[in-house]
């Protein structure tokens, strides 16, 4: 009697697992979200390149170097405010008991990975701009130094995410580390106002929010930002899908192990 019950229970269980796997596979397959984000990214990238390279004027002093304006600030904004902002917000939502869900932990990690990529690109494009404008690839001014520190902080965060522990311990640890790393974001933002730096002050996110660039340049920067945002969105979706597929993977492993056990004599 007990043995029959057990078999029924485990069959129910198996059915549940299969439904879960099917749901995840459906969720992570082709979707409108992915198409819209992906096609939008390509379109805005093409439009930004066209406007940035051919339509917008040269700068009186910087000449063609000014075209880095359509790459460097959008990538930096996407890293600092969009990607790391999302990581910070998602970490807070995990820590807040009413909104606690592993979804937020996964979102925080995915966004931080994209943020690290964008921040590295910020340093590279900034370095190129620095060489052509200032005359040096790198210098230890406040903005540059603190940005390098920020990159190290978020790489450390990604490393800490790999540490062992129960799911809950890990999520707690991740969230607290993320909040710690986030301290540097506003410091980087205000560094050009607080101290004498070689890096110029903001041209769009100025204290009064008045543009210090001609409108055509400002609009192209805006388009560049829309592009980096869409790419961020697309990568977030793909990265989150990978997390879900990891669940499928471990489920399949589990089922295989159970089957093996059952077939044992």
């Amino acid at each position, binding site marked *: 009697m007990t043995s029959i019950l057990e078999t029924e229970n485990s069959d129910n269980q198996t059915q549940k697992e299969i439904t879960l796997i099917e749901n995840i596979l459906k969720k992570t397959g082709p979707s409108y979200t992915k198409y819209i984000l992906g096609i939008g990214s390509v379109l805005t990238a093409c439009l930004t390149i066209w406007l940035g390279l051919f339509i*917008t*004027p*040269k*700068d*009186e*002093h*910087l*000449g063609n170097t*000014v075209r880095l*304006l359509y790459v460097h600030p959008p990538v930096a904004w996407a890293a600092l405010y969009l990607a790391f902002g999302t990581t910070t917000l998602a970490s807070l939502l995990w820590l807040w008991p009413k909104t606690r869900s592993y979804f937020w932990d996964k979102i925080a990690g995915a966004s931080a990975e994209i943020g690290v990529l964008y921040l590295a690109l910020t340093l590279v494009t900034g370095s190129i701009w620095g060489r*052509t*404008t*200032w*005359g*040096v690839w790198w*210098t*230890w*001014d*406040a903005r540059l*130094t603190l940005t390098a520190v920020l990159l190290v902080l978020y790489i450390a965060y990604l490393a800490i995410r790999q540490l062992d522990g129960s799911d809950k311990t890990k999520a707690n640890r991740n969230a*607290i580390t993320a909040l*710690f790393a986030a*301290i540097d974001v506003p*410091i980087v933002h205000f*560094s050009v106002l*607080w*101290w*004498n*730096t*070689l890096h*110029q*002050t*903001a*041209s769009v996110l*100025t204290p009064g929010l008045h543009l*210090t*660039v*001609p409108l*055509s*340049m400002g609009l192209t920067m805006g388009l560049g930002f829309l592009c980096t945002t869409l790419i961020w969105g697309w990568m977030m979706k793909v990265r989150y899908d990978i997390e879900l597929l990891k669940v499928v993977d471990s489920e399949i492993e589990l089922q295989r192990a159970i089957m093996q056990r059952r077939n044992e004599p």
Partner: protein
Amino acid sequence: MTTNERLLKRRKLRIVIVLAILLVIFGALIYEGLTNSIEYFETASQAVANRQTLGTSDFRIEGNVIGSTIKRKNEETLFSISSGKTVVPVISNGSPPQLFQPGIPVVLVGHFAKGNGPGGTSLLFLSSQIMVKHTNQYIAAHPNRVKIVKN
């Protein structure tokens, strides 16, 4: 409350306290370190006012290039920079970057020359490197205007 729960609560409290202390130290370090040594340069007027303490040691100075003063002499570039009412004459043996031009703000690495002024210096600044400091003001160039002038 069981002893287990109490222990757990105490451990949590301890972690929060340790984290809070770490945060305060981190903040204090950043504040201290940054306010004392993170100033990338001194403006020409700040530097002239601080000649007593600066002496002939290396630092970075910032000012606007006065257009009429630029002269090339062998490998050296001679010019003056101004910030506010202060004017500092400069001799630089570093080659100026492409963007170096009249009126542009620059940051120079170097030191005051020896002299009889405060701190044993003269007002002359000996520079080994010129960096152009771009402002956040972008101005669209007018290619048409240039063409008209050429014609």
